């Protein structure tokens, strides 16, 4: 097996750049560190009212009646809304948001329940009042009569014959074909490749295990805020915290049944999202309250509201079976994935199915995926949604195969690693990818060969894949006469994308990153731009900035030609200067020419709208050392190395931040985090004191290794970097625990209780 010598960052991109790959201070840095940046909860305006949402105390209940009379009589209360204030919805109407679809009835019912409460925390009614305290008091006075029903809380429970039905009219769909039977199983898919039975017959060793993961939350630090003003001219203005202002606009248009042109969404600064701030929850409710009162209405969630009333990532049941020859060649793999969708169809099981075996080149594969509705909040995206659940299973089974074959676990992965030309089980063939390079960087890293001394300590590795996306992005650039540019884009900035987008424009125009003034615009002020999600923003909106800068460059070349009274074809742009191809005396810097725009024809504005494909997948791997307390079962992470193929790191500091952030969330998911559910479906740990996210005291220094296998599908070789890094931590830690204790943990989280229980079972 060949490996490359360790380098802190493996750079396989040959081209060098002036701005791309450097580490300038982010453009929004001063506002953020001085506390001047304005977030959704900071928004204020004249006559502002405050809203509060009443939520269901039951996980599954029929709503018999809602009496709002006592609440309406409370001084300071101006309006109350329920589902009756939403437009009437016919069943079966599907709305298309461009990058996805959902049944309109489900979309509206998740905003305000119409007939049944489908999870504890489901919004039932809302109040607008003169203060948040009056609104809260009034909400408590609303009298809702329920017929409490038996809840179903896990995918396997929901799939059982005779299970309580979450939706009496839901029929299972199998790729375009619906069955006649009502069921909690919303959909089933199957990917097949080769001959699974033949593959297992060729295997010398087969490992099969079952795994369970539980519901976890994205844990963004900023709870959801939204303010709406339904103006007297009929236009609806919304100020909110979102990953996609246009998705908020389009969702509200569908939910409220008004044209998109009547809605303007202003994205405020965002305090984290991780996929959880794509769906709307508060915005339509605030809009209805504003329409009734004639005032702007602001609603801000509590932490408990976020846990119970937004979209966590699903619990799941995953069974994985893999067979291999004695030389380590994997001959067959089968996965059974059953994911909780929450109250409405649409779990990320499809993404789980795409990723479950995608790090490997396997000839014979079957992947079955099941989307199951349960009485929990409707799941939402969470950083590589669906992939960590699947990798927790696959990467432990691969580790067990390596143990039984007596092979180094990275060598086994390298022997079977996916590469350019590998056909995934779901069909597509990989273009240039960096799976092998990530594994080689892990193998040659000093961490992997460092002695691990002391009792109860172990080391684990794993790898994960995320496919990334492109989608639509828009950008415009105007040139200032001092040689700077104003860049307007539509991607909300969660992780430093103002900088990574601005740097791509700066690179094209030969100016410094600091000479770009990037701003995130509202939906009236920039072309359609899809969500900041799917690790797409630096890739796609960066591409839009690249194209807008090219547009500026073309126009500037024409101006230089005007100044020099030559043909534009004889002018070129090189290293920040416009030059004549024929006369070396004719040269002008970008700044000099910018200062002459008004006298040569007026302002220059470049623009671009893109919808690129070729996002290129990203692979991430971890090496983890742990120590397990044999008495308490507590797992301490001693050392953690995160390796990821990022294509080209536009701003390496923010790439490292993404890698560390994803790793930290993965460690929390691995060791502590869970919705601790009561038997009737009540989450019992709805504060961050009890929902145990890791703090800095729980985490080691997370070392990062940036691998750069340029994405041929992007002008600068970018691959999205935001998500793949959360996939490997849970199995890497599980494998490390096995290395330390011999225990194979088959459920998340691997908290002290789970580790201790596994120890008891082993000793029986």
């Amino acid at each position, binding site marked *: 097996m060949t490996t490359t010598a360790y380098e802190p960052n493996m750079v396989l991109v040959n081209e060098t750049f002036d701005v791309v790959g450097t580490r300038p201070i982010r453009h929004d840095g001063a506002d953020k560190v001085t506390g001047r940046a304005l977030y959704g909860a900071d928004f204020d305006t004249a006559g502002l009212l405050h809203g509060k949402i009443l939520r269901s105390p039951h996980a599954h209940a029929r709503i018999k009646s809602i009496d709002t009379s006592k609440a309406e009589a409370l001084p300071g209360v101006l309006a109350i809304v329920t589902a009756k204030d939403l437009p009437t919805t016919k069943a079966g109407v599907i709305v298309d948001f461009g990058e996805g679809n959902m049944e309109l009835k489900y979309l509206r019912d998740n905003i305000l329940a119409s007939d049944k409460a489908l999870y504890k925390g489901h919004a039932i009614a809302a109040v607008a009042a003169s203060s948040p305290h009056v609104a809260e008091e009034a909400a408590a006075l609303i009298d809702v009569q329920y017929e409490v029903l038996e809840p179903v809380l896990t995918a396997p429970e929901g799939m059982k014959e005779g299970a309580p039905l979450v939706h009496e009219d839901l029929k299972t769909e199998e790729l375009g074909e619906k069955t006649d039977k009502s069921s909690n199983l919303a959909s089933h*898919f199957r990917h097949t490749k080769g001959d699974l039975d033949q593959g297992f017959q060729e295997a010398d060793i087969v490992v099969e295990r079952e795994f369970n993961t539980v519901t976890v939350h994205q844990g963004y630090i900023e709870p959801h805020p939204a303010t709406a003003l339904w103006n007297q001219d009929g236009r609806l203005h919304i100020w909110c915290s979102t990953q996609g202002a246009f998705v908020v606009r389009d969702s509200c248009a569908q939910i409220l049944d008004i044209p998109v042109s009547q809605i303007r969404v202003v994205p405020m600064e965002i305090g984290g999202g991780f*996929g959880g701030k794509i769906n709307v929850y508060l915005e339509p409710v605030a809009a209805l309250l504003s329409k009734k009162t004639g005032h702007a209405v602001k609603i801000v969630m509590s932490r408990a509201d976020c846990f119970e009333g937004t979209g966590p990532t699903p619990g799941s049941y995953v069974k994985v079976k893999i067979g291999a020859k004695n030389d380590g060649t994997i001959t067959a793999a089968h996965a059974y994935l059953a994911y909780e969708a929450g109250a409405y169809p*649409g779990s990320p099981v499809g993404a789980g199915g795409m990723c479950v075996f995608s790090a490997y080149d396997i000839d014979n594969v079957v992947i079955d995926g099941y989307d199951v509705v349960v009485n929990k909040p409707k799941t939402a995206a969470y950083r590589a*949604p669906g992939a960590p659940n699947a990798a927790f299973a696959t990467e432990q089974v691969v580790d067990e195969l390596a143990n039984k074959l007596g092979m180094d676990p990275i060598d086994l992965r390298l022997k079977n690693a996916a590469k350019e030309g590998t056909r995934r089980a779901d069909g597509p063939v990989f*273009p240039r990818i960096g799976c092998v390079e990530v594994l080689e960087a892990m193998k040659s890293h000093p961490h992997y060969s460092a002695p691990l001394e002391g009792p109860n300590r172990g080391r684990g590795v794993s790898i994960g894949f995320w496919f990334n996306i492109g989608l639509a992005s828009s950008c415009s650039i105007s040139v200032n006469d001092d040689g700077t540019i104003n860049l307007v884009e539509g991607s909300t900035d969660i992780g430093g994308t103002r900088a990574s987008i601005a740097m791509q424009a700066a690179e094209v125009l030969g100016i410094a990153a600091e000479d770009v003034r990037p701003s995130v615009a509202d939906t009236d002020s920039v072309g359609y731009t899809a969500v900041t999600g799917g*690790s797409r923003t630096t890739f796609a909106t960066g591409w839009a900035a690249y194209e807008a800068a090219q547009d500026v460059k073309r126009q500037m070349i024409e101006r230089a030609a005007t100044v020099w009274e030559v043909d534009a074809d004889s002018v070129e742009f090189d290293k920040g200067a416009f030059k004549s191809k024929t006369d070396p005396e004719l040269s002008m810097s970008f700044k000099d020419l910018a200062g002459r725009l008004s006298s040569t024809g007026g302002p220059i504005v470049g623009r671009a709208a893109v919808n690129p494909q070729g996002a290129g997948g990203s692979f991430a791997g971890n090496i983890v050392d742990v120590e397990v307390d044999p008495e308490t079962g507590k797992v301490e992470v001693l050392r953690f190395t995160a390796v990821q193929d990022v294509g080209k790191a536009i701003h390496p500091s923010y790439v490292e931040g993404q890698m560390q952030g994803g790793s930290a969330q993965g460690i929390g998911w691995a060791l502590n985090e869970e919705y601790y559910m009561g038997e009737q479906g009540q989450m019992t740990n709805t504060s961050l004191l009890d929902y145990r996210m890791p703090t800095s005291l729980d985490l080691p220094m997370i070392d990062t290794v940036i691998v750069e296998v340029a994405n041929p599908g992007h002008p600068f070789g970018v691959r999205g970097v935001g998500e793949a890094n959360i996939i490997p931590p849970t199995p890497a830690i599980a494998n490390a625990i096995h290395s330390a204790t011999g225990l194979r943990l088959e459920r998340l989280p691997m908290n002290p209780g789970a580790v201790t229980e596994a120890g008891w079972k082993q000793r029986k």
Partner: protein
Amino acid sequence: MPTVYIPSLMQSLTGGKQTVQVEGSTVRQVVEALEQSYPGMRARLVDSGRIKPNISVAIDGEVTTLGMLQKVGENSEVHFLPAIGGGSHNRHGG
């Protein structure tokens, strides 16, 4: 001719064939050609003239947002896949 990979759950319509070759330079033409050779395909894939909400089309490995309008090359691979989120409008990741 483009090669269409038939999902396993639809192979009953193609007599068990995993791949078929049909004429067509757009997804719409490919679907019509499939319907001609394997009746029932259109109903499984298309509703009101559009690819069904819970199905994605990938051409040469790239999921398209153009649906029936997507161009298909002479040697392209066409895959019909379950839409990633199965009906959610946040299917593309976080």
